[in-house]
């Protein structure tokens, strides 16, 4: 009963989120080849044991110096290249109609990291990309030494990821190069990483790096998989896996066979020729206060419905995961659930009494 009521409240909350205007669609490709996306948007596509991770780094418009971000990765990428200009925007367009350009919001880039053993270095547009391997201390120190201003929560966040995978990508905008290319504030550079891995996972906790506790983290996460994916923690509206905790900050908006037109459009974009004829599309909208985003999204794309606790950031077991999610529930939601539960119990008692009478 309590679980149903809690789920009901969570669904109501999710419905509210869906009802808000979609700012994230219809981005235009700028004259310099940059993409404009209003919120953090990520594609994790998985096929034949390879994760294709596509995300965009947004130029914030600084006129001097360098600035960048740190991204934890599930494995060592075999390739890091400029992503197609169209992929992320096409996915956004698939799930929401275009909106007038004037409604775009600025979005802040995510802070990224790298490790002391340099695995790979490349330059993509005005971005200096370094893939590094190392522990939290080594990665953090490297970042500090290379001009990344780490926020105070960086040591614990880096440690959270390094316990699972010691591969990080540091992406740094060269402001001078960006200016030379004519990049404006809000212009994004899509990056496509090809990562062999047993199962994909999407780093979410890193999105809260340096954010204030109540600040809401917005992100759109797209998955393309051969099978219907099982996810941990479960987004609201997702399939019911036994004992899996529910993340109220994640809303499953779409779960369907990708349309033929979407597949065709994506396949013709740069670096997307690997796509098979048919894939399953999952779209998750994240809107969670920073202090509740203590998890990542683990995915089992094999059809065995066993997403990894470790990949979700809960190495100590399902009970710890459930407790974490429960503890991170916003207070108002907990009170709403408690109120609904009390109301339900009172109604039941009243009905019984009336029947007896």
């Amino acid at each position, binding site marked *: 009963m309590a679980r149903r009521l809690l789920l009901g409240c969570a669904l109501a909350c999710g419905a509210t989120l869906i009802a808000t205007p979609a700012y994230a669609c219809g981005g235009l490709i700028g004259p310099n080849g940059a993409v404009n996306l209003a919120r953090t948007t990520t594609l994790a596509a998985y096929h034949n044991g390879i994760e294709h991770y596509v995300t965009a780094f947004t130029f914030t418009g600084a006129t001097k110096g360098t600035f960048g971000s740190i991204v934890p990765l599930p494995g060592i990428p075999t390739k890091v290249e400029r992503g197609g200009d169209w992929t992320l925007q096409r996915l956004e367009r698939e799930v929401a109609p275009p909106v007038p350009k004037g409604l775009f919001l600025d979005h802040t880039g995510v802070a990224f990291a790298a490790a002391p053993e340099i695995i790979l270095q490349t330059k993509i547009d005005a971005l200096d990309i370094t893939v590094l391997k190392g522990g939290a201390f080594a*990665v953090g*120190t490297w970042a*500090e030494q290379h001009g990344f201003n*780490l926020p*105070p*929560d*960086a040591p*614990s966040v880096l440690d959270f990821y390094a316990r699972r995978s010691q591969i990080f990508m540091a992406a740094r905008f060269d402001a001078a190069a960006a200016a030379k290319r004519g990049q404006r504030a809000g212009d994004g550079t899509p990056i496509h990483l090809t990562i062999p891995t047993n199962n994909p996972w999407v780093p979410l906790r890193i999105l809260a790096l340096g954010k204030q506790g109540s600040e809401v983290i917005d992100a759109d996460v797209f998955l393309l998989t051969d099978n219907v994916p099982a996810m941990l923690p479960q987004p609201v509206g997702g399939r019911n896996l036994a004992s899996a905790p529910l993340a109220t900050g994640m809303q499953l908006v779409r779960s369907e066979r990708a349309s033929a037109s979407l597949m065709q459009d994506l396949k013709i974009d740069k670096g997307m020729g690997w796509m098979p004829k048919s894939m399953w599309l999952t779209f998750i909208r994240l809107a969670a206060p920073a202090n509740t985003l203590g998890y990542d999204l683990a995915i089992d794309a094999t059809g065995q419905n066993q997403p990894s606790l470790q990949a979700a950031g809960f190495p100590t077991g399902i009970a710890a995961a459930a407790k974490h999610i429960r503890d991170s529930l916003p207070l108002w939601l907990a009170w709403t659930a408690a109120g609904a539960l009390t109301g339900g119990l009172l109604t039941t008692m009243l009905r019984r009494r009336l029947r007896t009478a």
Partner: protein
Amino acid sequence: MTLARAVAALLLGAALLPACSSSPRTITVDMRFSHYLPTAMDVRAGETVRFKLVNEDPMTHEFIIGTAAQQEAHEVGGEIDHNGLPGQASLAPGETRTLSFTFGRAGSLIFACHRPGHYAYGMRGTITIA
């Protein structure tokens, strides 16, 4: 009478021993995940304490002892290196450093880090002087 005097002398000696000791008490303060451990300490008025400061984080931290008003002033200050200043230290990533400080009269002080965002994040603790 002689025995009583001897006992009194022993007790007096025992009481004065810590104050006369040549090596001050050492308190180890760990800095990890942008927090201090311990976050609260008790000292005596007039006591000199040797702090062993251990920065386990991959970022620079500070250890600055002062009143609440002094901490607020540091929060908007622009000093980058606090080493050599009384009751203050800056530690590079992974660095261990010692700092000796003599506490004055009874009351309470705060120790804190004023790197951008660290104080607000909770990198602070209290020292009670009895």
